[in-house]
C-alpha cells in the first residue's frame, strides 16, 4: 500500500492524477467486494445451498455480534486478548532488539549462537505452548509468555539482518571519522535496521495473535479464543463465526497500526521505492 507522501508535488501532473485516483478507488472496490461476498453468502444460506452448521447466515452472526457487544461480553474478551497480546509483544520486541544487538556486536557471538537460532526458528513455537501452560498454569501469565515466545523470533531474526552492515562505504565513512562502536551503532547500524525491525514487528504481531488464541484454546478463562471454544462447546455456530470475525478484525487492526508506524519510522525506504516505481 502506498500513501500520498511529500514528494508527490515533484511528480509530473499525469502521474499525480493517476496515483491520486488509484489511491481513492482501491479501498472502495475492496469494501464493495466484501459487501458483495457477504450478500451472496446471505442469499446462499437463505436459499439452503449451504448447511447452517457449515455456515450460518451472516445476518445471524451479525446479531450475535450486536448482542454480544451490547452486553459487554465481546468487549471483555477482546480486551483480554489484546492486553495479553500487547504485553507479550512489547516484552518480546524489546528482548528481541536487545538480543539481536548483542549477538551482532561480535562475529564470535553471532557464530556461536547461530545454530541455536536456526534450531529454535525451525521449531513450531506453538508446540511449546502446552509446556508453558504446564509450567505457568492457566492464566494470563502463560498467555503472555506464549505470545512473547511466538513473536520473539521473527523480530530478532529480522533485526539481526538489519544490524549487519553490508554497506562497506557507510562503514568506511564512519571509520574515517574515528567513530566509536556506540556511535556506529546508534548513528548507522540501528537506523539502518529500522525497516528490518518494523518488518519483523509486522510479522511478529500476526504471530502474536496466533499465539494468544492458541494459549486461550489450551487453557484460559477469557479472551476471544476462549469465547470461541465455549461457543463451539455449545454448538453455537454463529457464536464461533462471530469470534472469527472479531479475530479477523483484530488482526486487521494490528496490521494497520504496525504498517502506520512502519511508514512513519522508515520513511526513507518509501521515498526510494516510490521513485523506483
Amino acid at each position, binding site marked *: 500500500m502506498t500513501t500520498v507522501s511529500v514528494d508527490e508535488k515533484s511528480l509530473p501532473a499525469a502521474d499525480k492524477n493517476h496515483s491520486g485516483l488509484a489511491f481513492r478507488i482501491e479501498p472502495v472496490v475492496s469494501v464493495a467486494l466484501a459487501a458483495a461476498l457477504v450478500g451472496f453468502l446471505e442469499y446462499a444460506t437463505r436459499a439452503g445451498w449451504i448447511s447452517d452448521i457449515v455456515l450460518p447466515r451472516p445476518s445471524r452472526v451479525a446479531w450475535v455480534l450486536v448482542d454480544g457487544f451490547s452486553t459487554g461480553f465481546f468487549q471483555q474478551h477482546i480486551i483480554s486478548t489484546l492486553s495479553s497480546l500487547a504485553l507479550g509483544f512489547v516484552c518480546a520486541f524489546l528482548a528481541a532488539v536487545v538480543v539481536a544487538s548483542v549477538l551482532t556486536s561480535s562475529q564470535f557471538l553471532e557464530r556461536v549462537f547461530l545454530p541455536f537460532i536456526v534450531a529454535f526458528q525451525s521449531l513450531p513455537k506453538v508446540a511449546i505452548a502446552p509446556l508453558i501452560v504446564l509450567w505457568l498454569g492457566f492464566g494470563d501469565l502463560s498467555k503472555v509468555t506464549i505470545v512473547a515466545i511466538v513473536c520473539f523470533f521473527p523480530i530478532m531474526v529480522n533485526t539481526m539482518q538489519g544490524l549487519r552492515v553490508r554497506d562497506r*562505504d557507510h562503514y568506511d565513512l564512519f571509520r*574515517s*571519522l*574515528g567513530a566509536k562502536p556506540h556511535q556506529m551503532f546508534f548513528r548507522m547500524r540501528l537506523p539502518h535496521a*529500522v525497516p528490518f525491525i518494523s518488518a519483523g514487528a509486522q510479522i511478529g504481531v500476526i504471530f502474536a495473535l496466533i499465539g494468544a488464541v492458541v494459549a486461550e484454546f489450551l487453557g484460559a478463562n477469557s479472551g476471544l479464543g476462549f469465547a470461541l471454544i465455549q461457543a463451539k462447546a455449545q454448538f453455537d455456530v454463529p457464536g464461533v463465526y462471530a469470534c472469527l470475525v472479531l479475530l479477523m478484525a483484530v488482526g486487521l487492526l494490528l496490521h494497520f497500526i504496525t504498517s502506520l508506524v512502519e511508514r512513519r519510522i522508515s*520513511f526513507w525506504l518509501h521515498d526510494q521505492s516510490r*521513485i523506483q516505481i
Partner: protein
Amino acid sequence: MRDGPGLSESIMNTSNAPVTTIDGGTHAQFATGMRCASALTIQGACKTYKRPNGPQFLALTPVDAEVREGEFVSLVGPSGCGKTTLLKMCSGLMSLSGGKIVHGRTGQKVQPGSYGFVFQVPALLPWLTVFNNVLLPARILGLPIKEAKDRAALLLDMVGLGNAHQKRPSELSGGMQQRVSLARALLHDPDLLFMDEPFGALDAMTRADLNMELQRLHMSQGKTVLFVTHDIEEATLLSDRILVMSANPGRIVADIPVKLPRPRGLAAKKDPQFYAVVERIHQLLDKRTVGRLVP
C-alpha cells in the same frame, strides 16, 4: 626515490619543487619552513586481496611515494589499477599487505577523524536530511554544534546546494549527492583530504566551478590533497604532482610535476606547458594499457 619501480624516465623534482610550484599570493605565508615537511610517506606499500577460494590477487605492487604538506597530488590511471586501494591504505581505512605508510608530522599512521575522505560513491545516510548528512562529522567528532551548523550551511552554499538543506539523499541527483559528500568531507576542516573521483558525476560547468573552489581551498588554507581522477586535464589543472599508475599489476609508473603558476584559471589550459603535461600523461597511459611496450 619517490617513484614506483621502473620509472627512470620521469622528470624529477627531488629537492624543492613543491615549494616553488605553490606561489600564489594569499598563501605565501605557508610557503615557508614547515612546507617542506612530508605529510605522507609511503614506503613499499602493497596490497594483495585474499579470495575465499582461489588465488590471491595482487592489486598493488610495492609502491614508494611521498606527499608533502600543502601539496596537491593526483593519482591517474586506468580503471582497476589500484587508485582507490592506495587511497584507502593511505587513510588507514584498509590494511597494508606490506610496507608502511606514515603521517609526516607524527610518524604514526594517519589518525581517523584528522582527514576528510570523499568516497567514490556519495555514501550518504538515506535517513538523514542533506544538512544532517553534512553535519555528521561534527556529531561524531563531538565538535561544537552551533559553529558546525554555520559551517555546514556555508559549505552547502559553496557546492551550490544552499536550497536543498531539508531534502533527503534519495531526492537528489547523483551529482548533487556527490557534492553533499564533498561538503561533508570538509566540515571538520581537515588539513588532509583524500578525494576519490569526487567530481566524476558532475556536468562540465559545475565541475569547473568546484575545481576552482578546491584550488582556492588548497591555496588559501594550505590543505594537502591526494586526489584521484580519470580526467587528465583536471589532474593537470589542480595538481602539483601527478602520479601515473598502471594496472596488472597496479603500480606507479611516473611522477610528473606540474610547475604552472597558481592560481590556474581557464587561461592555464592554453599554456604550452599544460599541454606538454597532458600529452605526456596520455602517452604514458597509452603505452601501459594498449601497447604494453614498457617493461
